[in-house]
């Protein structure tokens, strides 16, 4: 049974006088593994922030697990952009992962035995258990990435939302990373936001193409010709392992 977990209707968003997103309609289901792609400044990060209830849409409606984003986001495991985090911050891997449990703690915000067990389990899954006392500045890019994913998983999400997750890892690690996400996508919905369209399309199930408005949402195996004619989205799409250079800039 497919359930709708995100419903976006006629969504627009203005930053001051500047329209960033226009009339977006989108439905995402609980078995989806979606790649949201678009160039820098296309508004995809804004869309993500609206889904997470960090920004309020100027027009339109967003439902997350049939609730408002602020209520529904407790089912979302969020993996923010790596570059937004201060690596010098004096915090250990374990403390970062445990902080994913903070919404489940008591009045004094103490972590229970259950919280610690969950954190330990996700650190094991992500292969960072032996680094648990390491300060995050001493991790490699890939290890830090896995720490942030472990933190998101420790919230026990039904939806994993990743913002530019492959920006700082090497190509080999990237392939492993997508394989891992593929396995994970059997257990939860996954949304991945990226401007890098190289490897993503051979791994995700569907693609959303955003540049201010939604240009395309559907199977990635659509033929490049049709894709170009219909949607003119400025992306580079790889289908069936054969790289097709798709499409020039769409016209505004």
């Amino acid at each position, binding site marked *: 049974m497919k359930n709708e977990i995100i419903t976006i209707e006629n969504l627009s968003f203005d930053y*001051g006088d500047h329209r960033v997103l226009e009339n977006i309609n989108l439905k995402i289901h609980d078995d989806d593994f979606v790649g949201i792609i678009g160039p820098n400044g296309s508004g995809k990060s804004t869309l993500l922030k609206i889904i997470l209830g960090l920004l309020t849409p100027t027009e339109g409606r967003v439902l997350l697990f049939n609730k408002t984003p602020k209520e529904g986001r*407790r089912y979302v495991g*969020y993996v923010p952009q790596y570059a937004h985090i*201060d690596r010098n911050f*004096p*915090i250990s891997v374990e403390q970062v992962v445990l*902080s*994913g449990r*903070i919404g489940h703690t008591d009045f004094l*915000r103490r972590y229970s035995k259950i919280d610690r067990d969950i954190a330990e389990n996700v650190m094991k899954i992500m292969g960072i258990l032996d680094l648990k006392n390491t300060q995050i500045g001493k991790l490699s890019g890939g290890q830090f990435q896995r720490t942030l994913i472990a933190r998101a998983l420790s919230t026990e999400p039904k939806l994993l939302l990743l913002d530019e997750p492959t920006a700082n890892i090497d190509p080999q690690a990237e392939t492993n990373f997508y394989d891992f996400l593929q396995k994970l996508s059997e257990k939860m919905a996954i949304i991945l936001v990226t401007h890098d369209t190289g490897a993503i399309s051979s791994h995700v199930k569907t693609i959303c193409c955003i540049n201010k408005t939604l240009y395309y949402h559907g199977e990635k195996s659509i033929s490049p010709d049709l894709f170009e004619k219909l949607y003119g989205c400025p992306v580079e799409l790889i289908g069936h392992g054969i790289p097709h250079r798709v499409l020039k800039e769409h016209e505004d």
Partner: protein
Amino acid sequence: MIFQYAFFQNAVIAGILAAIACGIIGSYVVVKRLVFISGGISHAAFGGIGLGLFLGYNPLFTAIIFSVISSSILGVISKKTYQREDTLIGAMWAIGMAFGIFMIYMTPGYIIDLSSYLFGNILTVSRIDIYIMIFLNTIIVLIIFIRYNEFLAFSFDEEFSEVTNVPVLKIYIILLSLVALTVVVLVSVVGIILAMALLTLPAATASIFTNSLKRIIALSTLIGISYMLLGIGMSFLLNQPSGATIVLVSGTSYLGILGIKSLIKK
């Protein structure tokens, strides 16, 4: 012996109390990069001092209320509007000071010694000042340690904390208010203008040695106490103003330790 004098005992007690507040709150100021906003809060507190002198109340008391309110307003504005945060801080910095000076010049009667509020004079610390400092320290310790995990998660990653439904705006305002209270603790020790030094230097020194927040807090409290005692002692020996001496001791120690550390690394 100088230790027998009440003013000297008060000075030492005030120095230690200030070091505790700075050790805790200064650690957050440094790791969460709140240095500039803390500068704004500390200078704006001068408005509260001016108000107190004008109204005839203990200026520390009015400074508490004034600076907590002004830092809360700043917190709300900086999070809720698209205004540039540093511009707002700069505005508050200047307006607070100007208001303080304005009120002081409106105050009838005797000419007030501005410099003891601006640069501190630890030898004029009274019993009442000490009680106020103990009260403020208790608030700071209780709030930070009762929900330590929440402050840690918030300071590390505000956005993620918000997604996990941590009340980030509330916590931000509380943290800024605690900075305001720490500034009030510091007024009589080093004064408004030099407060920034003690909010940053002990924690910055501590973070050279460890990278766990809890240990930074503990270590910077101890380092702060050493800076204070050394500074107070030297100001007596050299017959120099206490605030400036404490700050110079802190600053040179920090730079010295930083230099030694980087030499050893090579």
